[in-house]
């Protein structure tokens, strides 16, 4: 057991999807921007710039509502596989700088700098401040970073300085740092728990710190134990480094319900193109294709099939189309989705007996290259 404090940093990319879109189109800088679905229909905001947030625009809000709140909002359709690539690049960079890195999500990373003090002139806070500028300079991505003695604490700390902020919670000052913050900042405290705490007069973390363990568990059960730990500056501090992507999925909520087979197939084709290009970028093959259909009444059905591992749009589309036909009962459809899983990590290469054998692989690669350069709409693989 080592009692020396850990040094764990949390890096959170600021409005990540919007930041990537701004790299592609600098004219979006300084303007209220949201990435998400179509505002004419039932699209949802996936990421909003801070200029948009000033108007009350939030993630998961319907695009229509967002536009009502902020009429000058610029809505951008997302390019999901590109976000993954930027995230990968940051992940790789962080791995050069810290011995242990956890990718908690596409835009959040934890890294453990315990024992690295000497590497960074015994000034980890100084390093963290410069790291924010390094990420901005090298990847053009604004971010916020916190350095603390645990993961949970670092996560809370970063929330207090977003956007583009740095927060350092030195060892020994955890309780004092947390005390004035509202209880709602603790991960896992949702609206329900918060209301319950408020009803007992517990509004700040300091109030929570004043509770005994018995009082906390009497109030919130086992969850109370966790909250008390976090309030005392504890919480989790183990990094999960073996994060492996288990699935790739895309879904589309239509601006108006679709019923015709052709229309649904067309939408499915676009989704399949997208997931397959991510698949190829990873060098993976998929072994399972799952299709999801949601009707007007939100009833959601899905079905899956295991196939010979492939990364070919045509094969995946053929499977997805058959599954879709088997699933769709003819009613108007609100949403469809495709989900690939059961990946094989390495692609089995094939003997090239003739030019023709190699052509399909070359063609798919050319399509991916073109789309990376000019955008997804520039070219599609035929599905005849």
């Amino acid at each position, binding site marked *: 057991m080592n009692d020396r404090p850990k040094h764990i940093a949390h890096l959170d990319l600021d409005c990540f999807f919007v930041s990537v879109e701004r790299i592609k189109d600098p004219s979006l800088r300084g303007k209220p921007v949201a990435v998400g679905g179509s505002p004419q229909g039932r699209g949802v905001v996936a990421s909003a710039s801070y200029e948009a947030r000033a108007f009350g625009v939030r993630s998961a809000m319907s695009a229509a509502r967002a536009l009502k709140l902020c009429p000058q909002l610029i809505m951008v359709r997302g390019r999901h596989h590109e976000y993954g690539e930027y995230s990968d690049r940051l992940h790789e960079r962080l791995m050069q700088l810290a011995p242990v*890195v956890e990718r908690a999500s596409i835009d959040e990373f934890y890294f453990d700098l315990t024992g690295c003090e000497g590497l960074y002139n015994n000034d980890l806070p100084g390093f963290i401040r410069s790291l924010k500028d390094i990420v901005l300079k090298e990847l053009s991505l604004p971010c916020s970073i916190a350095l603390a003695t645990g993961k949970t604490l670092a996560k809370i700390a970063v929330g207090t300085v977003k956007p583009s902020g740095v927060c350092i919670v030195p060892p020994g000052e955890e309780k004092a740092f947390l005390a004035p913050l509202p209880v709602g900042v603790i991960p896992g405290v949702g609206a329900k728990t918060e209301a319950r705490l408020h009803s007992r007069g517990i509004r700040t973390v300091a109030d929570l710190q004043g509770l005994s363990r018995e009082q906390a568990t009497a109030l919130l059960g086992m969850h109370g134990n966790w909250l008390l730990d976090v309030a005392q500056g504890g919480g989790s501090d183990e990094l999960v480094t073996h994060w492996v992507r288990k699935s790739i999925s895309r879904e589309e909520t239509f601006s108006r319900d679709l019923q015709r087979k052709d229309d649904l197939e067309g939408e499915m084709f676009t989704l399949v193109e997208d997931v397959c290009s991510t698949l190829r970028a990873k060098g993976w093959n998929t072994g399972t294709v799952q299709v999801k259909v949601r009707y007007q009444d939100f009833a959601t059905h899905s079905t899956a099939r295991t196939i010979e591992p492939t990364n070919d749009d045509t094969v995946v589309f053929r499977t997805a189309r058959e599954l879709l036909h088997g699933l769709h009962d003819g009613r108007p459809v609100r949403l469809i989705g495709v989900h690939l899983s059961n990946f094989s990590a*390495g*692609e089995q*290469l*094939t*003997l090239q*007996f*003739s030019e023709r054998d190699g052509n399909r692989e070359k063609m798919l690669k050319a399509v991916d290259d073109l789309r990376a350069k000019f955008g997804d709409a520039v070219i599609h693989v035929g599905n005849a």
Partner: protein
Amino acid sequence: MKFTVGTSDLQRILGKLGGVIPSKSPMPILETFLFELVNNVLSITATDQIIASTITLEVRGDEDGKIAIPAKRLTDTIRSLPATDAVFVIDVVANKIKISTPTGEYSLSGEAAKEYPEVPEFVATATTTLDSSILRKIVHRTAFAVSTDELRPSMMGILLQANGTEIRAVATDGHRLSRFLYKPEQGAKLAKDVIVPAKALGILVKGLETGLCTVSTSTTHVKFAYDQTVLTSRLIEETYPNYEVVIPKENNRFLTIKREDLINAIRRVSLFANASNHQVRFDLAPNSLKLSAQDTDAGGEAHEALPCAYDAEPMEIGFNATYLVDILSHIDGEQVIMKFSAPTRAGIVSPADSPETEDTLMLIMPVRLTVPEH
């Protein structure tokens, strides 16, 4: 129709023919054996309309005739009888078969012989004779690599070429390829290159004993005649892929290693490999081979180091363990030589020593190595 036959002789023959019978067929008549008695010679035929095999045996014949007898019922019955003489009494008008042994009597219904598909006439354009052991070797060396992909029918068979001095047999499924050359003392010649369905060669090997086998080809069929057996098969009338172009000529990184040791190490390490592609990684450095596998889903990994001879640039290459073990298991000799060029190019596997009369070459395509996510 009436004859007396020893149950063990009959069982042996039905066992050899059983492989021809299709398991599910839209034509029930194919699920029967055709029995034909002429004097004291009983011929039994099985066919799936692509392959037909006839075996003859001496019996004590009393009355000539022809009948088709349900294959499964007959085989099961004969197999469960003790070694004894069985008397077959067959009513070829009512298609009723009665089998009597000293202790029992078994009756079943057959089909009229005229319902049985005719075996096409065979007009040989070339004939050559080979020792059974050579045929067995050809099939052993190649059949494992045949494709089961019905979209590539030409690869579902073994290519046989005989130009006069040597026989070449080639099989591939697109991921691995096996080419076996043999120079028989007396030479061998076929009128043209033929692709023989893998199933036919499997049945051939099962039936082959010792001695010579005559191989003849017609424009559409191949015929193997040995002992009391005549096996014919329709040829796969497709163009075989140009296999010569995929055999690399510039693989100059040579690894020499003990075959059994490598097979055993791959088997152990691959227990920890990804379940879908069985990827095993080779890390090669001067006189060092490190094998490793990891299954990121289950979280396990395995490493082994093996003594070997290797004096080229270090390289890393991945293979499907199942394919590689298949290849190594169908090669003879204590040592194998593997020749590589690049991690995405075909590797060559061949025995370190082989008799002057033969040449074995196997190709295996690698699995593209992926960097595990950290």
